[in-house]
């Protein structure tokens, strides 16, 4: 009888091992769920607008030829093939919706900004298991210089890069009076579009993106 017991125990163990192998193998499915996503299917276009605003009150817009690079807290301007394509396409799309682009320096009802967001966040975290120094792989950046003694926590830094394109439209027509002294005038953002999911790097992708964004924003029009 005792022998039976032992045999049973052995078989159950085998069963458990097979069970874990089976689950492990199948769990891998989910990781691959988006591996076959094509470049055209990857971008996510997110638009939002001020519900209290009637866009038919605006007739003109101003759009500089360069795009703004927003990198953390600093801003700069740039021009490249892709950015020029963005500017041209956005200008065409707004013109098609009945708005008129004005030359630089002229008064306009709307200000359009095309922004290339290029944020990098750096964080520091403690790594209590310094023995497993490479556990998180290369994706999290290098580890800090603190010792690998298991008795002291070591620290590592990680870096997250967030890159995307954004189109913002601000209300220049109803802007508050020019601020006095150090107070800066706040402009109301009445429309915002961001392109997430994948980075836009070629002109074809710009065309697709701008078309999709303005197609899903039917409220953007100069006339009723």
């Amino acid at each position: 009888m005792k022998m039976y017991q032992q045999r049973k125990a052995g078989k159950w163990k085998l069963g458990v091992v097979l069970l874990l192998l089976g689950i492990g193998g199948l769990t891998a499915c989910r990781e691959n769920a988006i591996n076959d996503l094509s470049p055209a299917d990857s971008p996510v276009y997110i638009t939002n607008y001020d519900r209290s605003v009637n866009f038919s009150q605006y007739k003109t817009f101003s759009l500089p030829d360069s795009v703004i690079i927003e990198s953390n807290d600093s801003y700069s301007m740039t021009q490249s093939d892709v950015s020029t394509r963005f500017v041209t396409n956005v200008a065409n799309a707004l013109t098609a919706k009945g708005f008129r682009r004005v030359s630089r320096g002229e008064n306009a009802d709307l200000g359009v900004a095309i922004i290339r967001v290029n944020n990098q966040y750096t964080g520091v975290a403690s790594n209590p298991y310094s023995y497993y120094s490479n556990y998180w792989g290369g994706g999290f950046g290098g580890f800090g210089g603190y010792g690998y003694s298991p008795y002291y926590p070591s620290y590592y830094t990680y870096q997250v890069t967030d890159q995307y394109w954004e189109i913002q439209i601000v209300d220049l027509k109803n802007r508050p009076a020019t601020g006095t002294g150090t107070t800066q005038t706040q402009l109301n953002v009445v429309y915002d579009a961001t392109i997430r999911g994948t980075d836009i790097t070629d002109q074809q992708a710009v065309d697709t993106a701008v078309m999709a964004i303005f197609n899903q924003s039917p409220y953007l029009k100069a006339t009723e």
Partner: protein
Amino acid sequence: MKPIIAFFALMALTTTAWAQYQNDNKGNYDFPSPYQEYVTFNISARYGVAFPMGGTQGYIDKVSPTNLVLDGEWLFPRQFSIGIKTGYQYNKQRLPRQVYQYDNQSISAVQTRTLSVIPAMISLSYYFADNAAALRPYVQFAGGGAFVNYTNYFGPLADQSSGFKGAIAPAIGVKYYGKREQGFGAEFQAQYQNVFFNYDLLKNSSPSLMLSAGISYRFY
């Protein structure tokens, strides 16, 4: 509708098979089988297809071809068993680009909806034949929980919710071993499963009907 027809078809088939079997499987053995005297064991591994129902259909409405069921049972001499039940259920559906409204935002994306369920349940079964029989139809009720992972990808961005939720799973099925006291056999099961999980597009709860087939092994 198809899952319901399949369910009744399986029920009808197993019932007739059992009725025929009852006629020629009694009183042929002088000594009782160990299966009838002691607590014995049965393990089973099956592959299944699952039909989403109810709230699940609001999220994914396509048949899932990726399901595994693992059962372990203690067979008691009086034709009932207590068991543990687990496995892995996975379903995925990709939708063409569409504009979705979330709060005030319009989001245009290709959604890849995935749902995985790892049940951890206790089962109680009643068999319509003795433990040594070649053909053993049964009814089963399982209850417990399930680890659910809901991941809805917008392009490559994920909207995820996961957790361990309560679950129930009544089932009917049949184990067929070929002859009396044989260890290895085949098993078929129709299981209705309801996991009490809801999130965003998956409303109320998450029921499904799974038809599974695979191998079964009894031993002592």
